C-alpha cells in the first residue's frame, strides 16, 4: 500500500511542454483518476510515476521515499496497459503466475498466489483454460491478475477499458471498483472518458494542456467546476454558458445579465467590468413563462426517463434536462428559469470560476 506524492513535476520534449509543474498527493488506498482530452499530459504523468519516463524537473515520492530516478522495476508498482497482451501459448494460471516465475519464486508459492489472485478476481474456474478461448472481459481480468499477483504497492492503469464498447465498459467499471474495494490498493487510473472517472474514482484530477485544472471528488468537480474547461469537459450534455459583460462586487447576490437581474450565489470577489459567463447545468433549468431569458425550442431529444430540450436564445444555444413527461413543441417560445443556488460564474478571459459563498472547500488547480 502506498501514498504517491508528485512535486513540481514537469516534462518537456524539445520545445513542447507535456506536463508543467504538477503538485498533488494521492493518499494510500485511494482510487485516483487523471482525466482529460488526448494530449493533456495525463499519460506522461502516469509514465513518470511508473518510471517509464524521466521528468525534466520535480520529484516523485512513494511512501515519502524519493523514487524520481529509480528504475521502473525497482518501484514496486504494477502498470496495466491499454492493450492487454496475454501469452497465447500459456493457460490462464501460467499467464498470471509468469511475473512470479521470472522472479524465481518457488512453484508451490506461485500456485498459492495465483489461486488467491484468481479468487479475488472471481476467475478460479478459468485457471486451466487457454487464453485464446476467453471473452474480452475475461482477458481483461487475467491481465489484471498478472499485475496483481506481485502484490504491488500501487496500480497504474492507462485507459485499460478503452477498447471495449460502451455498455461493457460500464460493467467493467463496476467490477474494477469492486475489486479496488476488496484489495484496497492505491490506484492511479488514466482516462479521457468522464463517465469512467466519475463512476470509479474517489478523487479526479482534470488535466488540460499539461496543467492540472482541478482536483476533487466527482461530485465537487461536477457541482463546482474550477474553470470553464472543467465545466465543459464534465457532464453530458455539458454545462451551458451564457455570456454577458459586467462588473462584480463581493457580497452581490445578483448579476445584471443584459436587461435582466439574475440571482446567483453570493459573490466573494470584486471585479471591474469584463466579459463573464453564467454557467448552468441542464438539469437546473426549468421552463417558466415569466422568466426573462427566452428562446425558441430547437430540438427535443427523448431519453426515456428524461429529455434534453435545446433552446436557441439570443445568447447561444441552451440545453435543458426536463422530465420526459413534459410536452415540448419545436419552434415554441419558452422562458428559462435557473436554480439560482446552482449557478456558476466564470471570467471568460481566463476561464476561471468566480469565487462565491460555495467555495469554502473547493480546490483550485
Amino acid at each position, binding site marked *: 500500500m502506498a501514498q504517491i506524492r508528485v512535486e513540481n513535476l514537469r516534462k518537456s520534449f524539445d520545445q513542447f511542454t507535456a506536463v508543467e509543474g504538477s503538485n498533488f498527493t494521492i493518499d494510500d488506498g485511494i482510487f485516483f483518476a487523471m482525466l482529460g482530452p488526448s494530449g493533456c499530459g495525463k499519460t506522461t504523468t502516469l509514465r513518470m510515476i511508473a518510471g517509464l519516463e524521466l521528468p525534466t524537473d520535480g520529484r516523485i515520492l512513494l511512501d515519502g521515499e524519493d523514487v524520481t530516478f529509480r528504475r521502473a522495476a525497482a518501484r514496486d508498482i504494477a502498470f496495466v496497459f491499454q492493450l492487454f497482451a496475454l501469452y497465447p501459448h500459456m493457460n490462464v494460471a501460467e499467464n498470471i503466475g509468469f511475473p512470479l516465475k521470472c522472479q524465481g519464486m518457488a512453484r508451490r508459492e506461485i500456485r498459492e498466489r495465483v489461486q488467491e489472485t484468481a479468487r479475488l478476481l472471481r476467475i478460479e474456474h478459468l485457471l486451466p483454460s487457454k487464453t485464446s478461448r476467453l471473452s474480452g472481459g475475461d482477458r481483461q481480468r487475467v491481465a489484471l491478475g498478472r499485475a496483481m499477483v506481485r502484490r504491488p504497492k500501487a496500480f497504474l492503469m492507462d485507459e485499460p477499458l478503452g477498447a471495449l464498447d*460502451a455498455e461493457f465498459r460500464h460493467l467493467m467499471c463496476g467490477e474494477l471498483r469492486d475489486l479496488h474495494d476488496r484489495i484496497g490498493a492505491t490506484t492511479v487510473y488514466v482516462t479521457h472518458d468522464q463517465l469512467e472517472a466519475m*463512476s470509479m474514482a474517489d478523487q479526479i484530477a482534470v488535466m488540460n494542456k499539461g496543467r492540472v485544472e482541478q482536483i476533487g*471528488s466527482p461530485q465537487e468537480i461536477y457541482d463546482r467546476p474550477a474553470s470553464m474547461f472543467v465545466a465543459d469537459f464534465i457532464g453530458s450534455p455539458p454545462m451551458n454558458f451564457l455570456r454577458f459583460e459586467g462588473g462584480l462586487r463581493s457580497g452581490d447576490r445578483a448579476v445584471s445579465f443584459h436587461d435582466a437581474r439574475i440571482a446567483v450565489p453570493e459573490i466573494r470577489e470584486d471585479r471591474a467590468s469584463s466579459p463573464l459567463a453564467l454557467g448552468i447545468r*441542464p*438539469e437546473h433549468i426549468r421552463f417558466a413563462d415569466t422568466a426573462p431569458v427566452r428562446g425558441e425550442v430547437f430540438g427535443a*431529444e*427523448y*431519453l426515456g*426517463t428524461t429529455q434534453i430540450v435545446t433552446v436557441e436564445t439570443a445568447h447561444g444555444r441552451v440545453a435543458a434536462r426536463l422530465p*420526459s413527461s413534459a410536452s415540448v413543441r419545436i419552434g415554441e417560445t419558452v422562458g428559462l428559469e435557473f436554480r439560482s443556488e446552482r449557478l456558476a460564474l466564470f471570467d471568460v478571459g481566463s476561464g476561471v470560476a468566480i469565487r462565491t459563498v460555495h467555495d469554502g472547500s473547493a480546490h483550485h488547480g
Partner: protein
Amino acid sequence: MADVVLRNISKRFGAVQAVGELSLAVNDGEFLVLLGPSGAGKTTTLRLITGLESPDAGSLMIDGRDVTHDPPGSRDIAFVFQQYSLYPHLTVYDNLAFPLRSPARRVPEPMIRERVERTAELLHIASKLNNRATRLSGGEMQRVAIGRALVRDPSIYLMDEPLSSLDAKLRAELRLELKRIQLELGATILYVTHDQVEAMTMASRIGVIRDGRLLQLGTPREIYESPASLYVASRLGTPQINVLPARLLSDVPVPPGTETVGIRTEHLQLAARNGGQMVGRVHRVEHLGEQNHVHLDYKGETLVTLADPHRPLHAGQEVELNLVHPLCFDRAGQRIPAAIH
C-alpha cells in the same frame, strides 16, 4: 421523397441467416432507425435496399414501384457510410458537387452552385467550401459526407452508423443537427445504429432488430414504455432495466404467468425502512454528476437505480424498495401487457 416497403425479405450468407422475412415500411418523411447489435442484419438490410445485395426471397418497393431486381444505379437512393470517404484532392465545394456532376444526371452548374451552397449552409460548413477536404476536422469531414448525400434529392437516404467514428461531443451535436435537417427537408431516412441514444433521440420510429428479425417497431416512447419482450426492454434505457425473478417479490401483485419483472429506475422508489417487505442494501453509490447510480443488493440480485446526487445514501445502508407499475414478462421473455395496479 417516397415510401420504401420491404416485404418478407430474406438473405442468407452460407449458414448464416443475415435477414429473415423482414417486413418494414418506411413512410414518406419519416426518420426510421433500425437498432441492433453488430451482426443483427442492419447493414445487410441497407445493402439489400441499395441493390448491392440481392435478396433470396421477398420484394422491395420504392414509391410504389417494384425495384427488387433493378440495378443499384436506377434506385434513386443516397447512402452515407460509417467511414467518410471524401476525394482528398478536391475542395469541399467539389466534393459536394460531385454527385450532381455525374454524367447520368446532367445538372446545370448554376443549379449545382445553389444546391451546394444551400447544403453547406444547412450543415454549417459554408465557410469551408474552398478548403481542401483533407484540411478539415473529423466532424467537418463527416458533415461533408452527409452533405454529399443531401445535395441530391433521392427517394430515401440510407445511413449506416454515420456518427460512430466521431467523439462523444461532436456526436451529440450532429445528432441534433441531423434531426433538424431531416425535419426541415422532410427527408425520408433509414438509419441503422447500435447506439440506443441515437435511436431514441432522432427516430420517428425505431425498429429493434436481432438475428435478422424485426422484434418491435414503434415510436421511441412506445418502445421504451411498452417493450414487447425482455430483450427489447433491455436495449433501451440507462441504467439498463433491472430484471428480478417474480418469486423474489413481496407485496407486489403480478398477473398470472409472470416469470420475471423488469424494473426501470422510474418503477423503483427508495424509502427509509418503514415495515415494508422488500428491503435492499446499498452496495455502492456511483456519482455521475446530475444523478447518482445506486447499486442495491436484494436477495442476492443486483438492482441499479437513479437517485438525486444530494440525497444521503451510503454503502451498507438498508432501504425499502417500492415497485410502481413494473413490466411483467412470461417464461419466454414476452411481455404480459396487464400493468400492475
